[in-house]
């Protein structure tokens, strides 16, 4: 298929439909509105259903209902709206239902701003809702990667019976880049647990996250834990760049990683070798990438559009073997390659 020029938000919708998603429940919030707008236009054409819910809370609970019926379903929102959805996400994780949640994140806390930010790292990777759970979080850096990961997200959701989050920022949502949709058959997964009426042929199916007996809940938590370990093993995704002789290794995800790549080029011109670890999955975090570090590497630098959230995972992964520094901008201010270069020089004492 030829490349088409698409806005990130619309490309997300198109990729979801390609992946066989027929149901969308959402609520308006900037900067992701083109997703529900696109779905309201396109889903009826493929026999699907778009419904604008009365709130983010209702939307995620509609997703919970639809997912329990065994269909591919999604919702999208932005940071404060995702916070409202966390209740439902926790239930979906607890009841082990597949669905995709897109977060085109913005600055916070509170109403914050509508500009790009990465301050939802904690809320995305630490199980923003109650209870012991994790779900995969994909952090694409380009529109092409967004499209590819959307299709992946639906497959992984079905494969593990888990909610999956695709985390972009306002830049991913709003910018246009050429994309190519690769033909990819959606993973076929039997869903004998789905509620579609017993037809008098089986026992009732129950979609539930309540285990009132402590032993039953602990057993459930152990089973979930096994699933999380399996996802860690099989679904971790990472890109590494220019690592061989790097003095400094930056860690950055999403659009920030692109800015860091520019900074790396600029450093190279000045004779400073800088590497990049770009987590493509924020959960599972690509800890193994930190075990293959060159002897030349003196220090890690976490670069984020936040006051420093992913740095916690970087520190866990580095495990004290090197110092970990931080550079970030927040509130919708976007890091510049110059800013990153300056920070690198200052760390190396070469100002």
């Amino acid at each position: 298929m030829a490349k088409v020029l698409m806005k990130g938000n619309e490309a997300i919708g198109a990729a979801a439909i390609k992946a066989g998603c027929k149901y969308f429940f959402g609520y308006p919030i900037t900067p992701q509105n083109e997703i529900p707008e696109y779905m309201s236009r396109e889903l009826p054409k493929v026999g699907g259903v778009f419904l604008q819910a009365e709130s983010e809370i209702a939307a995620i609970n509609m997703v919970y209902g639809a997912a329990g019926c065994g269909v591919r379903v999604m919702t999208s929102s932005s940071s404060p709206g995702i916070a409202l959805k966390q209740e439902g996400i926790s239930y979906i994780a607890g009841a082990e239902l597949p669905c995709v949640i897109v977060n085109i994140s913005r600055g916070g806390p509170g109403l914050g701003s509508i500009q790009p930010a990465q301050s939802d790292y904690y809320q995305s990777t630490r199980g923003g809702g109650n209870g012991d759970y994790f779900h995969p979080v994909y952090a694409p850096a380009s529109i092409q990667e967004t499209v590819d990961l959307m299709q992946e997200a639906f497959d992984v959701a079905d494969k593990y019976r888990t909610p999956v989050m695709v985390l972009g920022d306002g830049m991913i949502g709003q910018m246009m880049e050429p994309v190519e949709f690769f033909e990819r058959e959606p993973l076929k997964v039997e869903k004998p647990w789905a509620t579609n009426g017993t037809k008098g042929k089986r026992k009732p199916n129950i979609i539930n996250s309540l285990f009132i007996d402590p032993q039953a809940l602990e057993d459930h938590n152990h089973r979930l834990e096994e699933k999380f370990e399996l996802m860690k093993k099989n679904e971790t995704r990472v890109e590494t760049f220019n690592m061989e002789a790097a003095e400094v290794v930056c860690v950055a995800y999403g659009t920030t990683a692109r800015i860091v790549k520019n900074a790396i080029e600029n450093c190279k011109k000045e004779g400073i070798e800088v590497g990049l670890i770009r987590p493509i999955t924020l959960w599972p975090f690509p800890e193994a990438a930190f075990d293959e570090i060159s002897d030349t590497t003196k220090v890690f630098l976490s670069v984020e559009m936040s006051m420093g959230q992913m740095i916690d995972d970087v520190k866990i992964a580095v495990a004290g073997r090197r110092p970990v520094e931080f550079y970030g901008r927040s509130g919708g201010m976007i890091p510049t390659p110059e800013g990153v270069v300056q920070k690198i020089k200052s760390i190396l004492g070469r100002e």
Partner: protein
Amino acid sequence: MQERAIFAGFGGQGVMSMGKLLTYAGMIEGKEVSWLPSYGPEMRGGTANCHVTVSDAAIGSPVITNDATCLIAMNLPSLVKFEGDVVAGGVIFINSTLIDIKTDRDDVHAYYVPANDIANDLGNLKVANMVMLGAYLKVMHPVKEESVVETFHKLFTGAKEKLIPMNEEALKRGADSIVIA
């Protein structure tokens, strides 16, 4: 080659479209492209802008901060806001119908294009953006003019097809307004 252009003006001047046309034309030519708009309250009757990168190599950051190779300013607030973001030796296009001052920068090339006047002559004020784009393409060559015309044919279909001759004419008049010394 990497062109990093900021298109800016007030809502309704078609600055987003200018940027999209350039981006689309770049894609047709097989170049790496990105288009990043301002959004939100800014878009509701205020100033609007978009960042366009057209490049032979993969594009890092789509954000243009202080390294624009070019600024296309359709109104005064846009010139004031963004002229500092153009690199030394870069180019600024100024819609001289609406902007009656000169740029403060003496280390850039400035072109003053009476885009609204020319569009008025053509009988359609709405094509002022295409006049400006024509002027821009005459000076900077991130894409060929033919690619932009091809883009017209891809984007203006159905009822919009009749707009193509007017837009082509606007591009040409914009280009003609530039006298390269």
